């Protein structure tokens, strides 16, 4: 499990980094979401964006824990 990332001499909690990346990705994917058909079926589009962010954060964490070589980040 990757708990800590080494970025230019600073060790940060992995959660923070994955959340930042997930946030950026979710922001970028928002535009694509708005083009899916029946987007108007959603009551609150913000909820979908929140779900996207949470899923991305969780997915990134899972991917990193299982596939990211520790030598790259420690």
């Amino acid at each position, binding site marked *: *499990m990757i*708990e*800590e990332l*080494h970025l230019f001499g600073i*060790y940060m*909690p992995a*959660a923070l980094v994955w959340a930042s990346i997930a946030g950026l990705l979710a922001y970028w994917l928002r535009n694509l979401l708005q083009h899916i058909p029946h987007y108007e*079926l*959603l*009551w*609150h589009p913000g*909820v*979908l964006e*929140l*779900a996207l962010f*949470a*899923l991305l*954060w*969780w997915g990134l*964490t899972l991917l990193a*824990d299982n596939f990211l*070589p*520790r*030598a790259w980040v*420690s």
Partner: protein
Amino acid sequence: MIRRHEILRTCITAVVIGIVLAAIYALWLRYQVEPLTRDGKVRADLVPIAADVSGLITEVRIHDDEVVRKGQILLVIDRPRYRLALDQAEANLATQRVVLAQAMREDRRNQAMPELLAAEVIEQGHARVESLRTALGQAVAARDLARLNLERTYVRAPVDGTVSNMTLQPGIYLNAGKPAVALVYDHSLRVEGYFEETKLPAVHVGDPASVYLMGVADEIRGHVESIAAGVEDRERGGGDAQLANVNPSFTWVRLAQRIPVRIAIDYLPPNARLIPGQTATVVIHDRPGNKPVHRSLPW
């Protein structure tokens, strides 16, 4: 038609909210419940070495960061002085022997002619022999003590270890009992992870553990050796036989205490080096057969 549309909308929104909650739950498990901590330290017992006799250091036989074996001589303290003390004690002993031998001869002679001497004189001579015999015993003990002191001028390593932060030079005066050299006891090297108390239910003695040192990618394997029996209660002062002094303020926002968990090292990758004080991440793995502990809801 409008009605169906609204039902569909509600359903989709509910599903999306469900997804959000599920992802948050998974994230919570991963980051808050799994027993792992970034707050671990490599530790070892430190053996402070003090001289048993005072005196000038005449010889320093170690250098900083040297690995020493148990019994190896580290420092030599003023042997000439303690040799002189031994000589003196031996001379004293010899004197006592001579005096005792003379007194014994006199006593033997006195006892051979009781008709010529007063009983008091014979008794006095006998008592003198006895007291000189005890004095001889004292002199023997003083000689043995001087010999012991001379032996103790060699300051030896009590355990296998590594000398650390050694700055002694010949000519420095050492006081008996004052620590002079710190030895890191190599066999006591271990990792201690400070786990939040909320994660402790998932930690059991014997659980396998992975340790990652800061900047080292290779995994160090170990197992949970023990869990600290207690930590200081910071809300409470006052010593034994005093009334409890409990902090009157109680914060709204609280943080979990951290409890030291001791990890014994089973496998160290080649070329990896454990230095007490290094930072480590400790991950504890579940072992089949561990009894699950009920946590507060919903996890």
